[in-house]
């Protein structure tokens, strides 16, 4: 169990590094570009011979420093090439054949939040929370998300109070005056209560397979949102299972899942819940919404990060001669 957790942990870190890496690379490239442009413009203006200032010619000064400038220039070129080469290598390693395992790789979908400056679709986060609450939360925990974090993201404070109070049976508190633990309605300050008290209970209730925690699942799986979406929609009917594949009792065939045999039953069907904003609850709509919600759970700071990218670029572009 420790090994599995560790593997998942490494996978998460790797994905985080790579998703931030592209932004970092963009910033570096932008910085060098601005620097090159400014230097070029500055040179043209400064090195132009103007008869009125013969004694103060800048080219007089820069004549002596010509070799130094050349060294500097070649240094910048080298740095640029090194950064470019290293990024190309890392990108190539990341995008390599990936032939180490046999799952079906998901297609890349165009998520509403996948652009460099795109925020989450908050109406979708709201619908996705309903899907989680009514379907996923029967087996999957969401340990790192407190109710309060959804306030002003997808719910108002009053709505969240009501929703938290519905989780009554699961929240234990105490001890009271008699020294006993007791149940109480949930509050907005509580973390979303898990369906099972521990992993053993979860395994015992699910035929030996532990349903993973969903807080970081989008970052923790190869393919991220695309994988979760494809996997939830990728269950194969009993008639279409490839010849030679043995499916035991209580297991299901899903080509996107590593090993292709998954213990989770297909969780989403058309109209399994009803949306309060009138969106038709088809299976793909439900899946898209819950994936958006889980993506938000994995990186609730994403919008702030993208806002900071704009700030950073403005600051670098206006900071003048480097």
């Amino acid at each position, binding site marked *: 169990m420790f090994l599995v957790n560790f593997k998942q942990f490494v996978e998460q870190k790797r994905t985080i590094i790579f998703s931030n890496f592209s932004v970092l690379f963009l910033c570096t490239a932008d910085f060098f570009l601005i620097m090159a442009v400014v230097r070029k413009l500055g040179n043209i203006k400064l090195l132009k011979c103007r008869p009125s200032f013969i004694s103060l010619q800048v080219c007089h000064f820069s004549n002596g420093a010509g070799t130094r400038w050349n060294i500097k220039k070649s240094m910048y070129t080298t740095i640029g090439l090194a950064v470019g080469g290293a990024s190309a290598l890392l990108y190539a390693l990341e995008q390599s054949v990936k032939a180490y395992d046999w799952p079906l790789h998901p297609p890349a979908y165009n998520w509403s939040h996948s652009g460099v*400056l795109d*925020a989450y679709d*908050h109406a979708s986060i709201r619908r996705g929370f309903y899907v989680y609450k009514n379907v996923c939360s029967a087996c999957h925990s969401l340990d790192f998300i407190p109710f309060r974090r959804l306030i002003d993201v997808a719910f*108002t404070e009053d709505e969240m109070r009501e929703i938290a109070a519905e989780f009554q049976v699961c929240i234990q508190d105490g001890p009271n005056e008699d020294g006993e633990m007791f149940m109480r309605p949930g509050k907005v300050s509580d973390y979303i209560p898990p369906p099972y008290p521990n992993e053993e209970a979860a395994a015992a209730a699910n035929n030996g397979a532990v349903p993973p925690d969903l807080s970081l699942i989008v970052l923790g799986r190869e393919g991220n949102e695309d994988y979760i979406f494809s996997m939830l929609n990728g269950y194969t009917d009993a008639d279409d299972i490839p010849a030679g594949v043995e499916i035991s009792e209580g297991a299901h065939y899903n080509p996107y899942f590593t090993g292709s045999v998954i213990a989770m039953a297909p969780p989403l069907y058309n109209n399994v819940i009803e949306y309060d*904003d009138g969106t038709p609850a088809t299976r793909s709509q439900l899946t898209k919404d819950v994936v958006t919600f889980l993506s938000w759970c994995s990186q609730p700071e994403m919008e702030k990060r*993208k*806002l900071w990218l704009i*700030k950073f670029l*403005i*600051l670098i572009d206006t900071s003048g001669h480097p």
Partner: protein
Amino acid sequence: MIKRSFLYQLIFKRTGTMVLTAVLGGIILETAIDNISEAIFFKYNKGKLWDDIKHNYVKDV
């Protein structure tokens, strides 16, 4: 040159005015950059953010 000496006389000559300029300049610059980038971000993502869908769910007081 004239402009530079004007700035020097006005600001950089005394430590007090220079520090004041730096602090005020920092505050103004930061506020400006914050407002500009937020305007860009909100305009780019119009219709998707919580502020855009909030009115559907807030009960009238």
